[in-house]
């Protein structure tokens, strides 16, 4: 389902020197597999998710999702691919403030194929327990509710891979587990591969497969050495 091979990513610092962030020889995830990726701050967790999502193009290597090598796609095609195949849950929820909970779920559909499947959006919001909050704007929702909307939005286009970037970092402990459960439950139901980045051991220990970025990212390995 998901395969990264020889993926390298670096940034150029203001003084012109390159900053190497990722160097992953191989990483794979099967369909419906749920993986947690842990690592300290600044180790490239978010960059890894951006590369997988096609938000950033790697300097080299291949990123294959559902049989498609996204590194050879144009930016517009990667955008289209991302809309259709990848769900993304951000640490800060990133709901669009102008739109209601329902519209936040449906907006991703508009970017995928232009068709808004209202029934699916309603079902997803019902699944995360927000069917009574459909018309509420993000500012009218609690942080836990906002993240639940974000989970529903990430699932809107029936993605193959769901990327969650520290989804519980900004929510209270009471809601953390609820969000994790929802993410895992949703992915399980629809056979979506889940890559969840966290620095929380409590979250990490719930997953069968835990990948430490320090171990798979050769940049970090060489720095450590």
């Amino acid at each position, binding site marked *: 389902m998901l395969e990264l091979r020889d993926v390298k990513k670096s940034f150029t610092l203001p003084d012109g020197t390159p900053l190497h962030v990722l160097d992953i020889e191989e990483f794979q995830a099967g369909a419906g597999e749920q993986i947690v990726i842990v690592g300290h701050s600044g180790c490239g967790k978010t960059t890894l998710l951006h590369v997988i999502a096609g938000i950033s193009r790697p300097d080299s290597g291949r990123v294959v999702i559902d049989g498609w090598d996204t590194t050879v796609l144009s930016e517009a095609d990667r955008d289209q691919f*991302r*809309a259709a195949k990848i769900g993304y849950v951000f640490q800060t929820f990133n709901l669009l403030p102008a739109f209601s909970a329902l519209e936040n779920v449906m907006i991703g559909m508009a*970017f995928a194929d232009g068709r808004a499947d209202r029934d699916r959006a309603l079902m997803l919001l019902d699944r995360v327990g927000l069917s009574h909050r459909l018309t509420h704007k993000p500012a009218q929702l609690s942080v836990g509710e906002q993240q639940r909307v974000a989970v529903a939005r990430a699932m809107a286009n029936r993605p193959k891979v769901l990327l969650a970037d520290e989804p519980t970092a900004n929510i209270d402990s009471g809601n953390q587990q609820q969000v994790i459960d929802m993410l895992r439950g949703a992915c399980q139901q629809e056979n979506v591969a889940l890559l969840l980045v966290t620095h929380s051991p409590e979250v990490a220990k719930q997953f069968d497969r835990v990948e430490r970025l320090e171990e798979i990212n050769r940049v970090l390995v060489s720095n450590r050495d």
Partner: protein
Amino acid sequence: MNLWKIALRSVQHRRLASGLTALSIGLGVALVVGVMVIHGVVSHTFRRSGEGYDLIVGAKGSRLEMVLNTVYHIGKPVGTVPYEYYKEFESGRFAGDVELAVPCCMGGNYKGFRVVGTTPDMFDEIPFPSRRIDNDLSELATDEEREEARRREQDKFADSKGLFSEGENFGWGDYFGGVVGATVARKTGLKVGDKFRPVHGFDAEQGEEHDEFEVVGVLRPTGTANDRALFINIEGFWQIHEHGHYDESLDVLPGENASAEKPDSADHADANVVPGHDEAEHDHAAKEEEPDHQADDGHDHADEAGAGHNHPHDGEDGPDHAENGGDDEADHEHGAGDGHNHAFEGEAGHDHDHDHGHDHGRQVTAILVRTNEKQIARAMALPKIINQEGDAQAAMPAEEVTRLLEGIVGNIQAVLLVFAVMIVIVAGIGMMVSIYNSMSERRHEIAVMRALGARRTTVMSIILLESILLSLGGGIIGLVLGHSLIGLLAPQIMEHTGVVVHALQFQAAELILIPGLVFMASIVGYLPAVIAYRTEVAESLSE
């Protein structure tokens, strides 16, 4: 959810900024709408006012002034032409070239409203605009269609009653009958049966009062200058002016200037000015009676210098306009035989042979002429002939009005439009600044959209659509505001100019506002849209 809805939500989210931006555009658009509608209505009114006749013939001078004075009651008469000259159109050498000739005399007012002396033909024969207000012939495609529509209109209003909201036209023999325009009736309260006393000159504050006229009809609103005028029987007009004391400080009165040229003080010593005339001796009690103009031997007023006209207005016989040349002020009896053959034969049909003895010396300010369509070649040559002869001039109102509208008025409109459009453009720049400033706040939002799968072109389109929505919102505000203001000001506009405007009066030119605004929005929205396009997702998401 489509991009329009996404853009709309973004606009709605920034209610205050969006509202103020749209309002500023709306104010500019309202100005554009105001200028367009008022100019359109004024143009339409001006063009429509001159319908029903092809030519205006009057004293030599400014043709435009003559048209403005005659058709729109603006300004003062250029001069006068002798009544005999009018008769050339009625029964003389031009008779074959014309279908209709209606004389007009001006020189009085009632409470500031122009008083026009004319014949009943003014309303019986000229298709007044009110008859066409819902059927603008100019919009019909072919001559045949126009002719057919004209026939239908004439049949429909053959008795001219459709013109009047109250009463009817004054009769040929109803010397002291008058018809008042809709605005005059409303402003002065005149109604059928009321009496009014015109004063000399065009200024409500000056001039001596004349004899009383009785309102016999009130015109329906026409949306033309005629709404602000009173029309009296030309015979009554002559009588009051011939008997009046001319004041040099006032304007030329048609009955006082024998010259076709613009009058000067020397003309005022004309034969039919009546020195020492005693108005108290006139008894106009007979004005509603059938006139008796049986005199056969018209006489020459020019021979009566200093004598003036003697109008006994005999209560029984009607006014005998048989000036006998006597200078005896007491002699107001016009005996049959020494009078004149007056054409005003009363209501029961009139012949247009106004061959009364005291025609000579009488003047008319203008003659409305409808040329004979069957004599098209001669009719077309008529203005040239008249203008070459030197006695008078002929002007085509349509041509003069077009020149006025496309010249002076058109230029003023262009200047106003330029200012109004500049305001819209400034508002558009304000909109660009508003959206541009919002972009720094929205970089993260745009990055989220991109992360959700929106392409660069998609977010660019959303920003452009926001710009277009704001412009269209401003346009709608402007249209509503502009037309509402027109509706609110309509009574004042009508009071002061006689031009009838309605809130729902639209101009075809307004249709270009929408594509114009969309175009402007695309231009001013382009810069913020490019910023959206260039937003780096990874970088902005981390902000």
